[in-house]
């Protein structure tokens, strides 16, 4: 199974492919910026509080700086949701490139190796790696075998629009059937004029405009509804 877009295929032991949608440099960069801001705010608040604590205050301040730099992403990526707050806000999630939840050692590896991604300056290596790879992995992801994906499914095609089924004018090949079903599935997202325009491309396969089950339609039917009718017929409604 090949895809034109940026989907990543993970094959399961059952022999089916799971589609992952890797996130590119821009949402990940924004998520990182957001995390940086959150970490800074948390540290500033903690520091303001700890500055008043006698004795252990400064030490705890330094330890919290360490924790926010190194432990924060690891812990959040191992919690349910598998995302730092920044990633969560951007709708991203970390998982293994096998489609499984991220393991502790992989989370540690990918987060420690962020240092290598940062080199030589401002995440140049990481950005280069993301831009060169089809799965948008930075170096840490490559080594840990993880991938950052869009967590939410985008549904371009929904259920088919209701229509009285009509048989196509000619027998259709599988590719033609698929095209008609896909277009009908997207009809709800498009204006009816646009659907008519696209459905007109399949005019040769659709029943004639004045055709109605068991007779002749009084007014010509537009291509969109006729395509929906054929789609219903292809779905098995007779």
């Amino acid at each position: 199974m090949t895809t034109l877009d940026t989907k990543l295929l993970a094959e399961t032991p059952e022999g089916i492919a799971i589609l992952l949608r890797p996130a590119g440099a821009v949402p990940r960069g924004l998520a990182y910026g957001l995390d940086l801001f959150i970490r800074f705010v948390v540290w500033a608040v903690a520091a303001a509080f700890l500055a008043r604590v006698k004795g252990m205050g400064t030490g705890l301040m330094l330890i919290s700086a360490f924790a926010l730099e190194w432990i924060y992403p690891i812990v959040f990526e191992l919690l349910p949701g598998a995302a730092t707050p920044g990633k969560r806000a951007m709708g991203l999630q970390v998982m293994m490139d096998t489609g499984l939840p991220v393991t502790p050692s992989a989370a540690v590896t990918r987060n420690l190796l962020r240092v290598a991604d940062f080199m030589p300056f401002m995440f140049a290596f990481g950005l280069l790696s993301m831009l060169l790879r089809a799965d948008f992995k930075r170096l840490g992801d490559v080594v840990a075998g993880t991938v950052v994906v869009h967590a939410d499914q985008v549904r371009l095609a929904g259920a088919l629009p209701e229509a009285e089924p009509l048989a196509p004018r000619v027998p259709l090949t599988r590719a033609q059937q698929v095209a008609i079903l896909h277009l009908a599935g997207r009809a709800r997202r498009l204006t009816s004029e646009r659907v008519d325009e696209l459905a007109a491309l399949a005019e040769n396969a659709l029943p004639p405009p004045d055709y109605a089950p068991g007779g002749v339609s009084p007014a010509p039917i537009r291509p969109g509804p006729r395509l929906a009718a054929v789609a219903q017929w292809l779905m098995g409604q007779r």
Partner: protein
Amino acid sequence: MAMTPRQFEARYEPAWVELERGLNALDAGRPSRRKAGPFPTDANEAPGAARVAQLYRQCCEHLALARERAYPVHLVARLEALTARAHQRIYRRHDFGLSALRHLALHRAPAAVRALRWHLLVATLVFVLPTIVVGVATWLDPHFVLTVVDAKQVHQFDGMYGPQAGEHLGRTSGDDWTMFGFYIMNNVGIAFRCFAAGLLLGVGSLFMVGYNGLLAGAVAGFLVTRGDSERFFSFVVTHSAFELTAIVLSGAAGLKLGHAMLAPGRLTRTQALMRAARETSPVVFCFTVMLFIAAALEAFWSSAGWIAPGVKYAVGACCWALVFAYLGLQGKGHDATLLEDRTR
């Protein structure tokens, strides 16, 4: 005539709904509460784990059929989402928790360190040789120290270990807790960077290990010529067992990454890197824990001026012996079986 999408959906939808219910129940409940029975007796009861696995395999078949027969997108998408969710639930690793941590500390970490013996040897040499060379050079000519560090830092060393160091060795200011925080932030950060820099073909790790060796040699050589050797060595002897070992370990782990990148052998570079990361991740755990121990020792024990140097030397010797025994002997004999575990 093949089965139409509607017939397909009508026939198999009950299974999809049941799987969905089972997954919801698994996500909601704690594992201990789901032991009642694998197959539901009541229609409203959510299916148990065994039934979910069975349904998952059925749905995988349905998905394969739906894709092959080019059924409408919403049908395929529904099955895709369902199988992906079940796949995550069924194949996720469950062997986390305290027993896994214990296994890691007692068996996998020392075995992983021993498996890195050649990288360890190189990292040790890269650390020790500059230490000796610079140490001897500084000892012969104290001015040589200025080629490694600047005068301000030299002045700091004097304050830390000189006669005016007073009650607290190894620092110019700050109390025990402050220094503990500082050692954690600084030293663990350095070790992490040293490991990650290995990804630059190993050069980064070698540089950082060598540079730290250089620094150690300069400080030691300088303080010996100043006649502060007892204060200095009694300060470092205990925590260095953990700290220096940890820095060398992080360098060796980084080297392993660089090595995998340079010479992947019969694997692709990516595969070799992933494998190297899997093999070194117990080492990362090991040196991190060692640095936490070192930070605690350095802040609370090593710095204590009131403890007699003799006591510190004795404790230090015990710590060195402990570290070497742990890395060299702990769990020995099972290395081969432990390293077989290539799962992630």
